[in-house]
């Protein structure tokens, strides 16, 4: 079974490789990390065969909802294909072993493989059952060159876990996975060139990042029908065009086709207190208990992440057993599971991974000697969950393409401030219906939906008057430039010094002659206007009751010139007069 790995050099002669390396150093920030990927071909079938006791040379396929999701090489050579119905598959290969899909089983049986890889390479992440990835730099430095590394890994895994694997080395997970399928090494910085001639359908292969998202199949089909047959052709499209035509999923696919990582790199280490852990009085040794706890911890972690607008892309699962053994495994979590708002791993995804890992620890061959007493979930790498939302949001204004970048930059700065002060501290304003200058403003915390798209044109022109419903009693522009969040009390008297009050019919008892604000000196009123009666919220017993607004211009001398106030007089409450705003 074991043969010398068939290794191709994907990138050209050494001189060319050197030039690629040189040019890549300039764009190093853009270049994803170099990874070595260990891939077990047809892992679901291999795992299912092992679990069901079917010999590996027997044709076998794993079915879900009556369709083939994976089949062994033997079955494939007999004409079984992914997506076939069971009847079709059995027709083309009568002695096909029909096996059911079971992600937990796949994960459980994969643990020995991951452990075997880990014995040779540090920093191993399980991408999904069947694929592990590890940073290549350290391993290459140790083993000298790619061939030695690949050969040693293949030998070791097959000896330890009894599984045939293929290995690929490239920049970025997507390219490395495709390289593993071809058992080849892609020179540093040459991922894009390696990907260019490959068919665009590679985007949608099972297990690729994109395949986990809804709608990826339609996207790839659409690209193919548009005549974009290779990844290179797709990658050559300008980013803006892709984003406007294919949306978020298209952008993701475009990044992958360009040999970039699936989202822009964010090197910040997650804050330490994001980890959740729990210590159990009674050690856990049964899978059912573990599943229950996994669910709970996953929810807790997810809530913690969501509260900071973060999403986890690599999840570390650590456990300690009663006898002091330390178990650990890092899972990569890509998109998909949440589907709706771009949060890569929702609670469900975290819980699944924890449960699978527990399964493999508790039921594996090298099971710990005692039950687990401490479980810790630690997000090893996080991204801003809003990062993708910004892309969605960019359609909103659409007047100037140069704005998009500014919007994104601004969005990041605002998120940074939210981190300092809390999510409620940063807001943008939406003008809504209402009469008073304060009532018309609704502050929306940054990152929330503004909800003004429907009446877009009016709000956008900034005139503030182009809303649909009329608000009788609303004062026309100009509005006060200072609006007190808490109204300031005021006293208004007539020319004889008697307090001015509002009559039951909404008129003033006397023309206002002097005004004092917040216990200050009395200022002469030079001109005034109003009252504009307000009979709002009459159905609400807790409301203020009838009121009226009055504008006053204060006379020069004493008060600053041109000072004008918007006052509100209430019928029944004290203080009777309030300053709502100032025309500053």
């Amino acid at each position: 079974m074991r043969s010398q790995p068939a290794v191709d050099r994907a990138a050209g002669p050494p001189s060319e490789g050197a030039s690629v390396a040189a040019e890549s150093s300039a764009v190093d920030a853009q270049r994803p990390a170099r990874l070595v990927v260990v891939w077990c071909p047809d892992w679901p079938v291999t795992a299912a065969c092992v679990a069901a006791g079917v010999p590996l040379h027997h044709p076998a396929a794993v079915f879900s909802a009556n369709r083939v999701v994976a089949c062994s090489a033997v079955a494939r050579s007999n004409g079984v294909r992914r997506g076939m119905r069971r009847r079709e598959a059995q027709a083309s290969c009568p002695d096909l072993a029909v096996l059911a899909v079971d992600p937990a089983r796949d994960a459980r049986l994969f643990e020995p493989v991951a452990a075997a890889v880990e014995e040779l390479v540090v920093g191993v992440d399980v991408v999904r059952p069947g694929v592990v990835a590890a940073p290549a730099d350290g391993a290459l430095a140790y083993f000298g060159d790619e061939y030695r590394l690949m050969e040693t890994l293949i030998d070791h895994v097959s000896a330890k876990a009894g599984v045939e694997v293929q290995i690929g080395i490239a920049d970025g997970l997507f390219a490395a996975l495709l390289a593993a399928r071809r058992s080849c090494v892609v020179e540093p910085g040459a991922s894009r060139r390696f990907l260019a001639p490959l068919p665009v359908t590679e985007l949608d292969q099972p297990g690729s990042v994109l395949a986990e998202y809804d709608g990826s199949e339609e996207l790839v089909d659409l690209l193919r029908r548009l005549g974009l047959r290779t990844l290179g052709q797709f990658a050559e499209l300008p980013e803006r065009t892709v984003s406007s035509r294919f949306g978020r999923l298209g952008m993701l696919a475009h990044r992958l086709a360009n040999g970039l990582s699936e989202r822009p790199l964010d090197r910040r280490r997650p804050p330490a207190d994001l980890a959740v852990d729990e210590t159990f009085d009674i050690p856990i040794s049964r899978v059912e208990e573990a599943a229950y706890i996994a669910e709970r911890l996953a929810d807790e972690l997810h809530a913690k992440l969501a509260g900071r607008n973060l999403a986890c892309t690599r999840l570390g699962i650590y456990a300690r057993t009663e006898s002091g053994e330390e178990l650990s495994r890092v899972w990569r979590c890509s998109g998909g599971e949440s589907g709706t708002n771009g949060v890569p791993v929702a609670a469900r995804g975290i819980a699944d991974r924890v449960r699978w890992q527990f399964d493999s620890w508790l039921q594996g061959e090298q099971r710990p000697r005692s039950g687990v007493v401490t479980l810790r979930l630690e997000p090893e790498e996080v991204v801003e969950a809003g990062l993708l939302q910004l892309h969605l949001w960019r359609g909103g204004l659409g007047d100037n393409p140069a704005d998009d970048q500014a919007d994104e930059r601004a969005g990041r700065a605002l998120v940074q401030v939210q981190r300092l002060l809390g999510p409620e501290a940063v807001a943008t304003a939406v003008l809504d219906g209402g009469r008073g200058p304060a009532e018309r403003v609704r502050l929306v915390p940054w990152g929330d939906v503004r909800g003004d798209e429907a009446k877009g044109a009016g709000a956008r022109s900034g005139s503030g008057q182009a809303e649909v419903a009329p608000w009788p009693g609303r004062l026309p522009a100009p509005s006060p430039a200072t609006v007190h969040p808490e109204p300031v009390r005021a006293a208004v008297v007539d020319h004889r010094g008697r307090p001015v009050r509002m009559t039951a019919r909404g008129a003033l008892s006397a023309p206002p002659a002097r005004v004092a604000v917040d216990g200050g000196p009395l200022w002469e009123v030079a001109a005034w206007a109003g009252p504009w009666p307000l009979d709002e919220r009459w159905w609400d017993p807790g409301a203020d009751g009838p009121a009226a607004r009055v504008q006053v211009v204060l006379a020069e001398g004493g008060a600053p010139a041109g000072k004008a106030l918007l006052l509100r007089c209430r019928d029944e409450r004290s203080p009777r007069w309030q300053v709502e705003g100032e025309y500053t």
Partner: protein
Amino acid sequence: MAGALTSTVPGGTDTVDGAVARLASLPGLTTASEVAADVAGASAAGKLLPVVPELEAVLPLRGLRRGSTVSVTGSRAALLALLARATAAGSWAAVVGLPDVGLVAAAELGVELRRLALVPRPGPDAVRVAASLFDGVDIVVLPGGAGTTAASARRLSARARHRGGVLIAEGRWPGAEVELTCAPGAWDGVDEFGKGYLSARTMRIRGRGRSSAQVRETTVLLPGPSGRVEAGEQALRLEVAS
């Protein structure tokens, strides 16, 4: 005059061009056309954030130069009006530490509220919040004066310079490149009998750049009857009438 000038110059080319060329060759002297070229260059290079045409006259470069600090005293409406054109053109602005800013007025003055971030309560360290906002926001508005020490004010101005943002302070700000002093004038539209409603106000704005002694002055309607800034002729007429 011309005779006196030519007599000092050997060769005696008493054309205007020659005189200008000689004057321009003196160190520290800038001709009007060079100033104009500077303006055109700055705005072409994206170093200038636009303001509404009515306020261009009071700013040395007829716009908000990126990296500069502007202080506005006397009128918040004028401050908001400065943001209008830039936010409408795609720049972002943030207002830090002014919980009482009138957002309806801002919208009426032409500010694009979608690109106006508000941090009404930045806590004890408003300067730090403002500094981190400069990472992505072009204009940051901050209350000047109390609560900001001269040292932290200088640091924040330096931050704005470094990030290419514009710091607008409401009130005095040590080391501001441009100081706008607004003198609100009479209101139009109301009388002493309670008729009408506030519709327009004349405002005299004086702009002084730190680098030049020249004081630029303009009179505008701020706000005008539409809520926006309106041109000065009408304003002058009103001022004369009142």
